[in-house]
């Protein structure tokens, strides 16, 4: 069978940073094709090249057997490629009909929209998907699932041959997912191809035919999903040959010595919403507990729950002897918990402020007397941290945005160390920093727990988790599924646990 789409040797760089280096993708007509990979593997760049948002630097794209010339969304649509984005790009305040026919309105006398015809057409298309709704009502009055289906229906009504779905189930509940899967199967039956991007591997096994895996801007694997195991897919995503993983020392953590002190923090059956339904975790003094899990497994949500950022709807969080969970970050800080967010830009630095002001932001109330900041103490403290952590800055008054990523991260780490916390929750502490800074940050963390404190560590990097953590609590779809203890954790065992493979516990 001639492929519907064939992309080969695609390359793309942004300002010299390589995003794609030899990516390829082949989709057959009437096939549901999965595209997976870690964050930054190049999935969305590849899709954006396909839909004309970006221009490729090199490579070939054949669509329906001919070289594709797609320079924008409109051309993509006309060629028969439709994209259903994570964030729906529809207009919630306008009617279902308007959203469906936008840009392709049936006209009367060449100027006026023929509403009767438009409504009829919209209703007819939706009925084909088994959706019977009032098409005159505003789109926003329906659930996310219906809105998504309207987007898909719109795409198909425009004669799409390929529908791209980017994380389509991320905001759907179980029954809505079933409806969506029904529609996907309907598309397949009608000969329409679907490119399905998702972090949820179970879904892929449920509806996909083949799966392409990307890593570091390359296509590394393409196989039929029947016969593949989750372990295979995860191994391909992470670039690990699951058979030959040796736990050589590659991080600065050193082996975790499991000296267990008194319990610092305990979470039992904690839930905050659909993304986190049952977190069980115990943290002792002098211990680093890792949170393992794939994207969407609830790691970040777990951190936010422990820090009092998301209200806890079930279960209990106990810090030492405090009976209840902190209700706000301010309360968590007062009780001695610090939280380093994974999103340094959006939730970490105050870009226009100086290194000094950023560093003391969490400590500020304790630096003040009668509401006035004690500047002498502040400067002395900041200088101490700049020296101790080796923060490279011209001057403590330099705006933090001018620092490198690694040094920004050190300032933020110092922001939390400065409050002299008992517990630090670190969400991806070494993401986006260079190797040198990474080792330094890891050493700082080890030093911190060495003083009898506790760390909850979230990391997508397996060696950091395996070597850094004394224990790893593994999350899957918002639940604690198992716990691994060092010594004895290998990347192999972790990967199996992430895949929720029963052989781990056996």
């Amino acid at each position, binding site marked *: 069978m001639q492929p519907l789409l064939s992309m080969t040797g695609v390359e793309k760089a942004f300002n010299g940073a390589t995003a794609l280096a030899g990516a390829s993708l082949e989709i057959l007509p009437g096939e549901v094709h999965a595209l997976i990979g870690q964050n930054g593997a190049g999935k969305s760049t590849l899709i954006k090249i396909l839909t004309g948002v970006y221009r490729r630097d090199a490579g070939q794209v054949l669509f329906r057997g001919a070289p594709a010339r797609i320079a924008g969304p409109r051309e993509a649509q006309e060629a028969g490629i439709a994209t259903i984005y994570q964030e729906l790009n529809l207009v919630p305040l306008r009617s279902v009909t308007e959203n469906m026919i936008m840009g392709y309105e049936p006209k009367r006398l060449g100027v006026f929209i023929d509403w009767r015809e438009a409504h009829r057409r919209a209703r007819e298309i939706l009925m084909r998907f088994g959706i019977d709704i009032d098409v005159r009502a505003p789109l926003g009055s329906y659930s996310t699932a219906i809105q998504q289906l309207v987007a898909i229906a719109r795409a198909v009504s425009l004669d799409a041959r390929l529908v791209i779905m980017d994380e389509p189930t991320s905001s759907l509940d179980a029954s809505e997912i079933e409806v969506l899967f029904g529609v996907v199967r309907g598309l397949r039956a009608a000969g329409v191809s679907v490119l399905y991007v998702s972090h949820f591997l179970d879904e892929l096994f449920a509806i996909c035919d083949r799966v392409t895996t990307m890593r570091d801007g390359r296509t590394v694997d393409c196989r039929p999903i029947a016969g593949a195991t989750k372990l295979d897919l995860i191994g391909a995503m992470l670039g690990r040959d699951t058979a030959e993983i040796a736990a050589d020392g590659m991080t600065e953590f050193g082996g975790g010595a499991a000296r267990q002190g008194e319990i610092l923090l305990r979470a039992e059956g904690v839930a905050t919403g659909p993304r986190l339904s049952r977190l069980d975790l115990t943290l002792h003094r002098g211990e680093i507990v890792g949170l393992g899990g794939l994207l969407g497994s609830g790691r970040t949500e777990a951190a936010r729950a422990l820090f009092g950022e998301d209200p806890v709807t079930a279960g209990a969080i106990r810090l030492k002897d405090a009976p209840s969970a902190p209700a706000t970050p301010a309360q968590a800080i007062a009780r001695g918990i610090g939280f380093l967010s994974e999103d340094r830009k*959006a939730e970490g630095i*105050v870009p*226009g402020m100086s290194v000094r002001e950023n560093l003391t932001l969490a400590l500020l109330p304790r630096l003040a007397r009668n509401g006035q*900041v004690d500047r002498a103490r502040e400067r002395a403290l900041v200088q101490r941290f700049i020296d101790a952590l080796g923060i490279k800055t011209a001057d403590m008054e330099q705006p933090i945005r001018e620092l490198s990523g690694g040094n920004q991260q050190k300032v933020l780490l110092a922001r939390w160390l400065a409050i002299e916390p008992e517990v630090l929750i670190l969400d991806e502490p070494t993401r986006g920093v260079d190797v040198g800074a990474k080792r330094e940050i890891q050493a700082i963390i080890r030093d911190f727990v060495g003083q009898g404190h506790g760390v909850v560590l979230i990391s997508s990097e397996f060696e950091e988790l395996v070597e850094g953590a004394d224990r790893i609590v593994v999350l899957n779809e918002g639940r604690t599924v198992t716990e691994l203890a060092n010594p004895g954790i290998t990347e192999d065992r972790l990967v199996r646990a992430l895949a929720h493979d029963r052989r781990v516990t056996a």
Partner: protein
Amino acid sequence: MMVQDLPAARPPRRAQWRKLARGNGGVAALIALLVFNALVTPNFLQLQTLFVNISQVATIAIVAMGMTLVIATGGIDLSVGAVMALAGALAPLIFQSALGTAYPGLGVAAAIVLPLLAAVACGLFNGVMVAVLRVQPIIATLILFISGRGIAQVLTNGNLQTFKNPAFSYLGTGKILGLPFQGWLALAIAVALFWVVTRTLFGRYVLAIGGNERAAHLAGGPVRRVKIGVYVICAALAGLAGLIVVAINSASDAARNGNLMELDAIAAAVVGGALLQGGRAPVFGAILGALIIQLVKYTLLANGVEDEVALIAKAAIILAAVYVQQTRKE
């Protein structure tokens, strides 16, 4: 400890000077205006001219400084003009009441304190709308923008209230060391606010919230309280400005007091170097901005240019200030 030759040892005052210096486009504009007036405008270099300008610029500056704080948190306050009218309408009602005339001293004190409390209440309303109910600042403050002046007019039946009360009028006509009282008042407020912004916990949080609200919140900052605080300060200063205007005129006109002041104040803050996305609070910049706007107004007026044209000139200044801000961003 090892002695390190880090430039960090130099005083942070440098940084503040640097921040001040960023507004030097404004200083240049001010000097250009002064030189132009000295050469062209008749009778410009006379004390009387100075007094007129100081007494008029003081109200703009006082309101603009409050506005600067609000803008520094990423907000905006459209209700300042209406709050001026409300405070200004209340004052004569109080000191001309039966009680106020019976005890003149108490009457004047109450005529200053009570309107300011009313202004504070307005600020609380704005702050709660923005910080707790999370209404967009422009919409939240639009409510009092519309209703505040309405309330003031209802209180006074829409009449012009004239009065003779030397004690109260001192607010607008008094002189210290030969210069108008309200000029000194504006200066004192500027010094106080500068101290608040650069030295206090509150000031640090104002800038942090404007710079990155999420980060400030996750660092334990009292985001709601600080936001309510800036709206309260802004409204209180607007109320004070309303009292001054009434004192200058020895008359309260609810329809005109503070009319279009929100625009002057925002313009002065922006010209003074406040970033509309927040994170910067140049208090003295607001005074500079107010001076420029006042001088442009005066220049055009004194040279016989019509008021309507003056409005266009003001718009041009704002445009220029915004343009400078945009180009400064990297």
